[in-house]
């Protein structure tokens, strides 16, 4: 068997940067290694796996066992990178045929370190005892919330990040005025504070289990709320709603994160609330986040910028027409949308359509586009349907861009979607 991934590098020269990989397909094992620092792209890795397992013409699903013993999918650069960087000591890969994949096996506690359980991957006794949590298709995995900065906050505080774009749920919570007790040089004092007053059932805030009624809000995206009115705090939260980071003092202090070297080592992101709540708290390291563990909200403010949408009608200089009744201009808008652009290969229709609309998010992000990834071109029936109404486009965008635009699997980067109609 081909045991070495990188043939130019003999096995004995592998230093501490190398990660041993043990991949399993059916009953077969393969062993090789990858560079921990530069693992390469997922696509290459995928091809390599197919090659060494001699699999052809089949869609495969790649999974790995993470440090907690959970079976997690590898399907893009981000989670591949994460898998390699957290492998300890070796990266255990499980390959399944796409059509055979049982998604219920992904998630928490699906694999334990016990060898027995690893073998009984599908229906372990553990998963039978606990109700199975359906997590959805792996390519739909996106973070919805996380606890961050555990290493720098007092243990009585919790900093929760809610990703609105990861979910079509409402944020779903209310805040109120209240009084809180503070220890000051003059003793314990009553000071005004802001508290979570209500959770919307089924909302994002409730479903994460990280926020609770009567938690005191201390900070919003790094800005202290003390001295600010309820309205101000409301406005701040709404203004940050695309990437809301609230620091709370939980009313229930029993589930606090206990700091340990292991967790703080893994970039301060923790998912151990899952144990207490029964819900998975996914923390996925996105590629844009520096893997060094510098997860301040400062860089979040920059990187996780919501992107304004610009719909461009490429303007031909209109002919010098003398008639310009409203009716004629209205009929022109009807023509603005091309009759049909179904095929994704249809890139260069600029020539035969006088007015073509480009829907793209801010170009800043299109520049971030990885050169290797093909730009996505899609024709969306919903868009044509909407007759160019910005509202409808945006509505469909808001709910879930992936669904409404019928994007091919795995081909979209988080930001910088460029869609040419």
């Amino acid at each position: 068997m081909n045991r070495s991934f990188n043939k130019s590098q003999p096995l004995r020269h592998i230093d501490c940067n190398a990660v041993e990989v043990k991949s399993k397909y059916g009953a077969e094992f393969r062993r090789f290694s990858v560079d921990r620092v530069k693992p390469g792209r997922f696509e290459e890795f995928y091809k390599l796996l197919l090659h060494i397992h001699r699999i052809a013409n089949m869609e495969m699903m790649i999974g790995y066992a993470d440090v907690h013993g959970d079976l997690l999918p590898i399907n893009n650069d981000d989670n591949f990178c994460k898998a390699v960087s957290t492998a300890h000591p070796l990266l255990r890969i499980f390959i399944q045929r796409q059509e055979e994949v049982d998604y219920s096996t992904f998630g928490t506690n699906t694999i334990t370190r016990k060898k027995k359980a690893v073998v009984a991957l599908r229906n372990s006794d553990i998963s039978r005892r606990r109700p199975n949590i359906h997590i959805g298709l792996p390519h739909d995995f996106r973070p919805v919330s996380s606890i961050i900065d555990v290493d720098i906050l007092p243990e009585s505080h919790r900093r929760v990040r809610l990703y609105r774009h990861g979910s079509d749920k409402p944020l779903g919570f209310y805040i109120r005025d209240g009084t809180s007790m503070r220890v000051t040089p003059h003793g314990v004092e009553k000071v005004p504070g802001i508290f979570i007053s209500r959770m919307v059932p089924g909302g994002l805030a409730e479903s994460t289990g990280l926020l609770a009624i009567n938690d005191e809000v201390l900070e919003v995206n790094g800005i202290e709320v003390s001295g600010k009115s309820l309205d101000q705090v409301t406005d701040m939260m709404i203004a940050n709603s695309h990437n809301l980071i609230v620091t709370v003092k939980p009313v229930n202090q029993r589930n606090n994160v206990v700091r340990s070297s292991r967790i703080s080592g893994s970039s301060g992101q923790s998912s151990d609330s899952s144990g207490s709540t029964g819900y998975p708290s996914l923390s996925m390291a996105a590629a844009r986040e520096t893997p060094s563990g510098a997860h301040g909200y400062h860089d979040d403010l920059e990187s996780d910028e919501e992107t304004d949408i610009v719909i461009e009608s490429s303007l031909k200089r209109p002919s010098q027409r003398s008639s310009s009744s409203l009716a004629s201009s209205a009929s022109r808008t009807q023509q603005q949308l091309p009759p049909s652009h179904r095929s994704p290969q249809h890139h260069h229709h600029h020539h035969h359509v006088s007015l073509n609309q480009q829907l793209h998010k801010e170009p800043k992000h299109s520049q971030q586009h990885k050169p290797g990834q093909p730009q996505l071109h899609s024709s969306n029936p919903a868009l044509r349907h909407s007759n160019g109404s910005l509202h409808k486009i945006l509505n469909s965008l808001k709910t879930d861009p992936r669904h409404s635009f019928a994007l091919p699997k795995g081909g979209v980067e988080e930001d910088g979607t460029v869609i040419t109609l």
Partner: protein
Amino acid sequence: MMKFRFRRQSTDPQREKIKQELFAFKKTVEHGFPHQPSALAFDPKLQLMAIGTKSGAIKIYGAPGVEFTGLHKDATAVTQILFLPGRGCLLSVLDDNTIHRWELVAESTREVGGVKKEGVVSLREVDSYSLPGRPGIESSSATRATVLLLLKSCDLLCVGTEGGGVYVLELPRLSLKENQTLLQDHVTQSLPDDYRCGKSLGPVESLQEHPQQAGKILIGYSRGLVVLWDLSSRHADQLFLGKQQLESLVWERSGNLFVSSHNDGGYSVWAVTNGNIYNHQPVSSTIPYGPFPCKAITKILWRTTQLSSPVILYSGGMPRASYGDRHCLTIQQDKEHVTLDFTSRVIDFFTVHNMDNDKEFDDPSALVVLLEEELVVIDLLTPGWPSLPTPYLAPLHSSAITCSCHVTNVSTKLWERLINAGKAQQSRRHTHRKWPICGGKSLAPPPRQQELLLTGHEDGTVRFWDASGVALTPLYKLSTANVFHTDCDPIDDPHDPCDDPDMQQQEEEEEWPPFRKVGCFDPYSDDPRLGIQKISLCKYSNKLVVAGTAGQVIVLGLNDERSDHLVDVSVMDLLQDREGFTWKGHDRLEPRLKPAPFLPGFQPLVLLQCLPPASVTAVALHAEWNLVAFGTSHGFGLFDYHRRNAVLARCTLHPNDSLAMEGPLSRVKSLKKSLRQSFRRIRKSRVSGKKRAVITTTSKVQEANAALAEQEEVAPVQRRIEPRSADDSLSGVVRCFCFADTFLRDGTHHGPTLWAGTNSGSVYAYALEVPGVDSGRTCERGGASESSMCVEAVLGKEIQLMHRAPVVSICVLDGRGKPLPDPYEASQDLSIAPDMTNAHSVLIASEEQLKVFSLPKVSAKTKFKLTAHEGCRVRKVALVLFSSAVQEDYSEHTLVCLTNMGDMHLFNMPGLRPQVRFDCIRKEDISGIASCVFTKNGQGFYLISPSEYERFSLSAKVLIKPQCSVQLLRHLGHMFTW
């Protein structure tokens, strides 16, 4: 990120210095009429008038431009003001039974640049005293001051009380002279038994010093008794046994007569003849508006004249049944009799007359009447007693202010035309005699430029004010009501009825009482739909756009001649065939079908009617391209008023938005609110109508209840945290427009563009094809072919801000990052030409963020997330040119941003780096924040009450504030003669 920017900014000492030279915040002057005035006084020697208000403010006015303002520490009503004539000193009595001493303090003369400058005088509170007997305690109301009298000698202050006692205080210490106190028992003893009849004399209603004999005062008791009291001998000279409840007293100049006014609407003249102590009957007694029961004459003045019989002036006395609700003041002299009919309550009045002791007659020259809502001055020297236009204290709120607009640097030509148009409007009965209150001297430099403030009102008028200096003076009034056919429309009469009250007066000549409507405060709007919502004026082409509550947009042009013409009407459907919407609001206003006569001034050219007729929310005018853009809660339109052609209509309505179709009048919430407000108004007016309302326990309970009710009104203490969504209500409201000659298509061709921003964070950018406009320059409109061509608009870009906050302002910046010049400024070389070689950018300010995007490709360059950082929301935004106060030619374009917290944030352009922050308006003052307008040079105005604009300056250089001197009769500066 921002923290770093702040830090970097503040550590640069050079930058700090420049900032200090550019920015400085100061509230400079209050324009308009003081809200809820409660006291009036006049210093005949210094020719200064003082007005006290219910909120505890004292304002002193002299010659136009001479103004002083003082504010008591407690916001308690000023009940009385007394000048110490000639000394630049005054006493104010507050409702809480305290007396405060104010002085006009002059700064020492200083030399500035080799020129000796006269000392600027300011008003300061020097001292305060508490009179015995606090309000609110029932038992001590006996010592509550009702009237005060300052003796001419200025050394004694007599205080009349509720309990009927008269106390004498010594100035300046205001120490009580115990042995001088005159209690009621003392007087009662000397009364004949049949008059005494065991009843109290009641509170002291009036104290008047004998005009000739110092030390003798006339004391009038509520029950009707009047006593001539000698202060030195502590002895009643004479007793006048009046039987009618007393309201006020006044001496005749000689001291041989005095006049008393009474509760039954009558007045009596009493002769003061030496001899008998008791006077049982007055010389004469008259009830002028009898014989039916009349209301009280609250105050009466008796002024002698050399050439004719005395002038009698009195307020009230109206026949109770028929005219009991009128606010009237009567002037009578011989046969001449005028009943001035005001629209608001008479607070107080005085005459300007001869005060010299050696003169034999009063010879009054003017009557000054302080009303609840305005100041009216009547010229008593001109026959017919016409009213005098007031140079200050203009009632801004004569009809409620609905919007305002400021125009900087108005050309002399336009200025003169406006003044002439204004003069043509003034009624015949206005006199042009000199303003009678002429004390002090304004030291403020003459205004550098003419500035216009335009206010839109609920009654459909637009008023033009001279805002160049300290005194805000009316120039011209434009009424838009005559474009429409309204219920109360006198078809044949071009005048607004309130425009010319004298016309009515002629018709009512035979009526008794001989009413004459005076003043311009008119709180009753004929039709709320006439209300003005948006104003835009092009000062170069003299085109004006005025838009109102019922979706009307009127384009007007300036014409010096009267004109009778029919106004073109164009209807714009902004729903654009959207289905499923039915407008539930008010109807549109019916345009007048017959040609209407229009007076010199701004005359309507075109009326655009938006459908549905919702209130216009945004308007923009580009006179060079003859285009007007307008928006409502449903969409926006573009109209070419030169060719009378609708260019564009666009619906912005969100399919789920139901509220937008409700219309303002049918909204349940607002109806409830207005009901509540009207009840409150009734309650308030009842309280204020009562004379000297003693705060009793019951009223305290009421107050507490009211406070509780107010608290209940405060919105629930819970706030939902949810990102804004597209289907929030009223998301389609068009908030702002921007016309710009810039690069929308590509980086090489620029051309006219129109930008529109909505409540839901959408921005629409249209490329315009304006015939004759190429590459930003207007060519001569010569060819006939060109004139037949039409303006075209093509949607170039739609931008959706992802945070969806309402777009407050859009502005295009040139290649140097400076705002593009106004229409005509570039083509007529009135400003530095914009940089068209480097890439342009567009500033889009939403309620949450300020963002600069590059053009033509709309990509974010810089941004500042104000709400995310500060928790405040942007309410008003303006690009202002700040000039350095030190360096002659240095100036910076700065973005000024007023937030819902009432503070001003200043950002540099186009970097959007925060410069300074000033607290400006209380955050509770929502109407103040909503009414704020900025000038282009760093000043601004906002309403501090329905009738007053506060003027403020953010610029270290441009500062319009009162600077006045007063020639005081006391010796130099602070030395006091007493």
